């Protein structure tokens, strides 16, 4: 590869709505509320934005949705559709345009008004015909849990307890966050006794279903300090596409996600990270289900293969642990308004790096990592973004 994004682009303003069942808010409200917060944070006005990229799966249909909501006056606007990585890919495209020297100040937005779609959970996206319609999102991740338990010799009780600790940790963090949808504190017993959605996953192994919006304003590293004393610099932006190998070959093991591993490895190279567990201060990963977070800890090289249980038991990923994961509560507590999630993750890293995370503040963080996993674990598209001071 010829180039790297490291330290070439900075985030100078961000905004994020409260996530939840926002019956009284429409798609336009979510866009405007998050972007207005970002303008104020950056100290700029709408007229300063030169181009925008907006991530959304269900809510937007073309860039017009965003310029119309924001009453943007005749600027370039692109709708980014890239599964659960749509928000991070909006940041990626916006950052590349700044790095290329085309624009000085650009906007990346993510939004989803899930509760207008009449769904109580995200639909399987792989159901072209009924013969393949065995897949719901909880179902396709549940089969990972079954195989992970089997491969590493965990009884269902041991495996489910390991996963329960992930959800208990995320809710403890989310309970401290006024913008989280689900703010209740859980116990392991309550998680284990919850109704089964797709065995072995129960209700509290699944993330919420929520509306939300988030936005980021980017400029060049050279100009960043004109806007604020503490801009957050982009260190790596990687996306890994998939040949969908797990669907068609018997080689895929259902206990890891190759695309997460490769996106992570590429991002570490780009950011110059050689020891992820030591160098990454905090991570927001794609915990659509508890098993996804468990496997992602191994794919991102935070835990050795098959050993994430040891780190979970040791409290490594808790807010006061060695590597806090989902400091804001994660998808578990924010739900997954698809286009918004990737930018919501970066919003938390941004606040943490600037020392503005209030009761969730991690001591002196240097580098934060955000990860998304789109589609199914056997055929996903994964993104990793690393930001730092």
């Amino acid at each position: 590869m010829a180039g790297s994004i490291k330290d070439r682009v900075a985030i100078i303003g961000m905004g994020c709505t409260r996530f939840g069942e926002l019956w009284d808010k429409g798609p336009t409200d979510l866009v405007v509320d998050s972007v207005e917060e970002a303008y104020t944070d950056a100290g700029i006005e709408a007229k300063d934005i030169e181009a925008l990229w907006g991530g959304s799966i269900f809510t937007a249909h073309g860039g017009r949705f965003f310029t119309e909501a924001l009453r943007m006056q005749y600027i370039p606007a692109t709708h980014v559709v890239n599964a659960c990585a749509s928000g991070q890919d909006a940041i990626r495209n916006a950052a590349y345009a700044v790095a290329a020297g085309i624009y000085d100040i650009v906007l990346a937005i993510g939004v989803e008004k899930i509760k207008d779609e009449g769904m109580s959970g995200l639909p399987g996206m792989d159901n072209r015909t009924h013969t393949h319609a065995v897949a719901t999102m909880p179902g396709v991740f549940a089969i990972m849990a079954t195989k992970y338990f089997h491969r590493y010799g965990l009884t269902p009780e041991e495996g489910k307890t390991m996963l329960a600790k992930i959800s208990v940790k995320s809710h403890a963090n989310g309970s401290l966050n006024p913008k989280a949808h689900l703010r209740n504190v859980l116990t392991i017993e309550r998680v284990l006794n919850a109704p089964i959605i797709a065995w072995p996953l129960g209700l509290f192994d699944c993330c919420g279903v929520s509306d939300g919006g988030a936005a980021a304003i980017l400029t060049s590293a050279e100009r960043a300090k004109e806007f604020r004393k503490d801009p957050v610099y982009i260190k790596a932006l990687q996306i890994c596409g998939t040949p969908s190998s797990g669907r068609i070959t018997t080689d895929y093991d259902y206990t890891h996600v190759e695309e997460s591993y490769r996106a992570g490895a590429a991002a570490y190279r780009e950011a110059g990270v050689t020891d992820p567990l030591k160098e990454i201060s905090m991570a927001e990963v794609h915990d659509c289900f508890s098993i996804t977070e468990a496997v992602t800890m191994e794919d991102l090289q935070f835990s050795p293969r098959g050993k994430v249980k040891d780190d979970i038991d040791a409290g490594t990923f808790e807010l006061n642990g060695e590597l806090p994961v989902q400091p804001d509560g994660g998808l578990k507590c924010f739900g997954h308004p698809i286009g918004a999630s990737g930018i919501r993750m970066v919003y938390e890293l941004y606040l943490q790096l600037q020392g503005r995370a209030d009761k969730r503040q991690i001591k002196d963080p240097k580098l934060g990592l955000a990860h998304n996993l789109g589609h199914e674990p056997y055929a996903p598209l994964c993104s990793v973004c690393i930001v730092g001071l």
Partner: protein
Amino acid sequence: MTQPAPASPVYWRFNPEVFRLIGIKCNDCGHISYPRTKICHECGSLNLEEYKLAKKGTVHTYCVNWAPPPNFEPPITPVIVDLESGGRYQGLMTETATPEDVKVNSKVEMVLRKLTTDRGLNVYGYKFRLVEED
């Protein structure tokens, strides 16, 4: 994602794949893929031939889904089956007394069943049932 109606062309196009279990085998590297691909996943070759899969296999992994897709009654037991012929099939179990009868590495075989009814039409396809170990 809205599914096409059961009588639509996509079902006719999928007939060889769905009912005759036609996958592909690469003439260059021997790799077997199911569902069919246009390009060999392993080596990138376009020199592929049709390859009929076996109806028996082994459960690679599974779950018990109490919140299935529309038109299915809970619980369903989706299984990922590695077929004896090579190739991997994603399907549903049938004829189990309880979902707990299914395990990783259970031996299974395909049987033709009605999968569901959609917009007044029956939809047929293969399901798996447990077979006794040899």
